[in-house]
């Protein structure tokens, strides 16, 4: 089960009141605090670029603020992640249309959480440096395998397997039918399995260390 982040309100923030379609008022900054980690991780795995992921999340929250009066009050997480995924897809298409090289400085290994996939995901205590190196390599392989998937399949796999959404929630977030979600999840898993198998990450259980 994917790790679900529970964000608590640790710092005061501006009280930005927004109203959904039914007229119910909500503190939008509370919404941000509760969803920014999921949004950021989804964007980062969709984009495979932390800087672009931050831009995507920022843009997504601005879009959500402006469009909150159209939210019908059903599943806020699915609604937010749908905006994030749409923003990421738009950015990916724009990047494909106009490939460019980022001028941002490359992440350093100083423990800054802004750096790439590596140090971000490594817990501060527990594994040895060797384990950390193995985990880092595995995560990079997984990310590389995710990048080989089609956007829709990648998004479905991320929503269901990484963010722990049900098929119903994923269908809301992706704006498609339940059967389409099942198909995309299955094909995405199958594609990633094939990639990992070729990469030697999938060994038969008798060769695997538990």
């Amino acid at each position, binding site marked *: 089960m994917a790790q679900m*982040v529970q964000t608590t309100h640790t710092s005061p923030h501006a009280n930005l009141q927004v109203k959904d379609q039914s007229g119910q008022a909500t503190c939008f900054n509370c919404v*941000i605090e509760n969803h*920014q980690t999921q*949004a950021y991780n989804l964007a980062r795995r969709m984009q495979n670029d932390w800087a672009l992921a931050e831009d995507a999340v920022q843009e997504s929250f601005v879009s959500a603020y*402006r469009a909150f009066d159209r939210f019908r009050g059903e599943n806020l997480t699915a609604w937010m992640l749908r905006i994030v995924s749409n923003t990421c897809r738009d950015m990916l298409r724009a990047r494909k249309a106009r490939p460019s090289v980022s001028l941002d400085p490359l992440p350093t290994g100083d423990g800054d959480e802004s750096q790439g996939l590596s140090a*971000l995901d490594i817990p501060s205590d527990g594994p040895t440096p060797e384990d950390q190196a193995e985990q880092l390599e595995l995560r990079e392989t997984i990310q590389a395998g995710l990048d080989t998937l089609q956007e829709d399949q990648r998004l479905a796999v991320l929503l269901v397997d990484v963010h*722990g959404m049900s098929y119903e929630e994923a269908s809301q977030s992706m704006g498609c039918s339940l059967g389409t979600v099942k198909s995309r999840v*299955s094909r995405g898993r199958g594609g990633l*399995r094939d990639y990992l198998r070729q990469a030697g990450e999938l060994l*038969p259980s008798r060769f695997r260390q538990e």
Partner: protein
Amino acid sequence: MWLLNPKHKHIGQDTLSEYLDGRLLGRDLERVEQGLEVCDVCRLDLEELQATVAMLRQLPMATPRHSFVMSAPPPEPARARQGQGFRVPNWVYAGAASVAALALAVTVSVDATGGLSSDPLRRDVAATALAPDPASQQVTVSSAAESELEPASPSGSEDEATGPPSLAAVTLAAPTSDTTERDGAGAAGGVGIETVPSSAATPAPDTAASPALPETAVQDTGAGPVESTIVSPTAIPAEPEDGQIVRGPRSGPGPASTTNEVETAKSQATEDSVPVSESGELSLFEQDGGGTSTWWRVLEATAGVLAVVFLAGLALRRRAGRRDSA
């Protein structure tokens, strides 16, 4: 082991994926479990799929390096701020452009036909041209045209008196003069001669059939003998009467144009003599109508400009709408 059961069909990837997520029930679930028991290939597929999903689910959630909490509401998009002045619905632009275009068409057509010109004579021409019998108008016109060469003869006036009450005759005065100008320009040797018959044709019916004239004409003209004085033989070559006929509408519509007030007629005759002798009726009309049609031209131009402005506004709105939807 699955080779022992040749009827076994491997479990599909979609089914295995649903089985992993616990979404299979009933007979589907039993069938998958039985297949997994007997088929090593299916079991290996399931194991690999399970390992893949486990890797995905073990991916940690990274914490963003900074919070995305907003300190203030995000500014409105630039397009929205620019578009605040264009909140008027599109149909208003379309309707206004249609109205302006219609007004332009009406003004241009009216200007072309002269039917609703500001010139009273032309207005009356257009208004009364349909009233009398066209046949009688033709007769009157032809008789007037024929009588041009015999200006102001009493017999001509008597002949005209037998015609219909000469609203038609007078209302067709202008076209008659045009045709006669074309027909008899060389023979008559000038506009004065051509135009005199029209004036001579009109006084005669006025004198002879003045009781038959409409009340308005009678009221406007005042008295029939006025025309007889205007069309006196001494005034035959004088163009002022012709000019007076055309300009007459200033003081009264239709037939009244031929029966202007005596004093004004005389004074106008002297005033109009020069332009008429130079340019004839049409030019006089244009000259006179030029002043009155100036505002009409302004009206046309205004309608045209408004139509263009509203159409441009509609086009800009639609382009902005496409940008927003994109």
